[in-house]
């Protein structure tokens, strides 16, 4: 039986969230939507990836070519990216209203046909992903058991006004994007909420990474809410810049890896702090042991002065140049400084935490942390649990 709250939602609908508006250049608009997903089992997770692929194929109103041309005119590409807790849909337009119309069309009237489904499930298993994507995701979705109704059902469950968070960058009057979006969504009547089918079990994990380099992962526990600032600051001290602990200890002192990353990746219910250490060494277990010991010792030696130095790095990363920013919402690549990525971060952060991303407020939170808070968060990442080891294939 459908729970009462869910029933009400399905019948009455929920108004869309206000649009987050970011200042940007004139005459180009970056439109970034995040569609929140509930905890998905392995079948639905694979179906979400197939849905993303199908959404690229155009809608009942716009062909794929028309959407692509509109994006390119604004210097952007259509981005539809799977993540464990959301689907990113990003596009560009030189006309705000037209861009929002196009987004609305992608969300509400895609062409989910048998032919599009078959193209997607045929292509996706053979698609290559980057080393870092594999190292972060570590899963291999199974598209073989999917059927078209799985994708249709997922689309009907997800594509609803209350699930869509939107940020728009460009030059327009304050409130203009929200007004246009509200007008476009007023008549959005989502499909009836479908019956939820059982989808449990675990996704298939990768046994090896493509390429000659394996990865050692040191992983902390999932964090939420008040735990986030200490975790984020700890990850910055570990991974940002060449004064970061990973560069100093893992690269310079131990010499076992060229490039390391300290990242915060999404899970369906929170954020996961992780340290990724690629290494071509034959004995990755020994690399992991050495890294855990040396990084744990380094963290123990942190001082208030070290934290003050790290605040300088954090200011650079959060305010000016994002290289080294740990949050990786899509789990595939670092966020950049582009308007599209700034808008995406804004939309994602509100979806995940309920508040608007504010770099200065986060920096103020870092300043209020004690040395012990930050050390505890860092030790919880680098020295808490058993490492995850994924060897390279060649």
């Amino acid at each position: 039986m459908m729970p009462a709250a869910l029933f009400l939602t399905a019948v009455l609908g929920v108004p869309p969230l206000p649009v987050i508006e970011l200042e940007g250049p004139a005459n180009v608009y970056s439109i970034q939507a995040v569609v929140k997903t509930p905890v998905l089992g392995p079948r639905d997770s694979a179906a979400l990836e197939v849905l993303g692929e199908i959404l690229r194929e155009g809608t009942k109103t716009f062909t794929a070519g028309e959407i692509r041309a509109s994006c390119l005119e604004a210097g952007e590409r259509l981005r539809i990216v799977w993540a464990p807790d959301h689907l990113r849909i990003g596009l560009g337009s030189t006309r705000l209203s037209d861009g929002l119309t196009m987004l609305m069309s992608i969300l509400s009237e895609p062409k989910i046909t048998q032919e599009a489904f078959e193209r997607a499930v045929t292509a996706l298993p053979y698609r290559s992903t980057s080393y870092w994507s594999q190292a972060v995701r570590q899963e291999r979705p199974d598209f073989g058991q999917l059927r078209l109704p799985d994708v249709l059902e997922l689309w009907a469950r997800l594509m609803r006004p209350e699930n869509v968070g939107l940020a728009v960058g460009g030059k327009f009057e304050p409130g203009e994007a929200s007004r246009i979006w509200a007008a476009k969504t007023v008549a959005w009547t989502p499909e009836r909420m479908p019956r939820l089918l059982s989808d449990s079990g675990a996704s298939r994990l990768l046994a090896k990474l493509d390429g000659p380099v394996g990865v050692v992962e040191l992983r902390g526990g999932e964090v939420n809410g008040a735990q986030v600032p200490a975790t984020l600051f700890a990850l910055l001290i570990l991974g940002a810049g060449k004064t970061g602990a990973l560069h100093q200890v893992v690269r310079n002192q131990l010499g076992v890896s060229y490039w390391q990353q300290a990242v915060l990746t999404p899970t369906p219910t929170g954020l996961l702090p992780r340290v990724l250490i690629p290494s071509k060494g034959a004995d990755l277990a020994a690399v992991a042991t050495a890294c855990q010991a040396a990084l744990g010792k380094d963290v123990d030696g942190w001082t208030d002065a070290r934290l003050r130095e790290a605040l300088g790095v954090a200011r650079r990363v959060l305010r000016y140049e994002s290289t080294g920013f740990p949050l990786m919402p899509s789990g595939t690549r670092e966020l950049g400084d582009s308007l599209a990525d700034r808008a995406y971060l804004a939309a994602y952060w509100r979806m995940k935490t309920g508040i608007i991303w504010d770099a200065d407020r986060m920096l103020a939170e870092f300043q209020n942390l004690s040395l012990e808070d930050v050390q505890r968060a860092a030790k919880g990442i680098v020295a808490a649990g058993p490492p995850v080891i994924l060897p390279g294939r060649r």
Partner: protein
Amino acid sequence: MLSLVVGLVLSQQPFANETPSERLRTVLPNGVTIVVERMPKAGRVGVCLTAAARGVEETPATHGLRHLLEHLIAPGKGGDVDRRLEPRGATLTAQTSRETMSFRVSASPADLERAVACLQEMVRPDALTAERIAKENKILEEEIALAEDDRLLGMAAWDCGYGPEGLDPLGGLAVMAAATPEGLTELHAKHFASRNLTLSIVGNVDLDATTRLASRYFGGFANNPAPEWRTRTSFKPGRREVDAAFGDARAAAVPGVANPRTMWTLSAGLAVAALYGDAFATYTPSAESGLVIVGQTTDRAGVNLAFDEADPGRLFPLGRRLAKAWLNRQLGDPSSRAALLGTLSALGGVRYETLEENLRTMTPTDFAKGLAAFARDSAVVVVGGR
């Protein structure tokens, strides 16, 4: 760190360029070039030291030594340049391309002199030791192993097109393993000969005062001559398979960066890359012969088919827009602008306005010629075999 001087994907901010109001280019008596450009609205300063590779172009016998040298000198005197910069919110990044080695600092305007002083240390580094070389070679081994598919496809394109004249600066492990302190010191002296050096500074700065500051730090070096660029003469179209890579690529030969044909070809490459979807396009500005490479690494094949079906009439407006967007992106912030100024100066005093003019005057016929450079029998076709 090593990467292309200009690696590009589709820009997301095509109209961010701020027309400069002033620029001052000064050649010091010792041959060092100082370029200072005022960017009135900039909140940061970009400072870039570019050493042209005139006289030290890679050969099979020296393959990777410049990259190794970059790793060894980037930490600065005492190995703590990053500790002097990063806590103040500044960063130093280093890059080695076929044509240049560059060190770039992005900092707050208050740290301009600190940035210039740190970059001076790259010209007068600490003595090199066998121990440091051995340690850095271990890291380079890891770096080379991490090379991803786009890099492997690009390396194959250069190898097919230019052979030993197109060696990838990432390097060969055997040559780097045999490096000696004496050999690298000699290489450094040639690479950082005063006439190979450009210091470029961009930000909300006073041109005269900043030039004087730069002159204080870079005017004291000996006046060392630098030879002419070695010309790449051997471009050969062809087809290459790369067992270790996934995806495919097409590469077109281009003349020097200032030649209009280069912008025509880059525009065509960018247009096809954008149409394909997740394709990449790379171009490293060069004094003479170079390559524009377009490829993709998500599907087994695709970019080569996209080129075969490309319609120049339809792609011309898109290509011009994207090339302009690419150029604007390089000029959009002080740090990348300083890097572009440095590179163009090192390649013979090219001005970026020349590139803008070449784009502005490009006709559909010119664009079609740029696209024709990618034709199967004129270009290099690379196919991944993994």
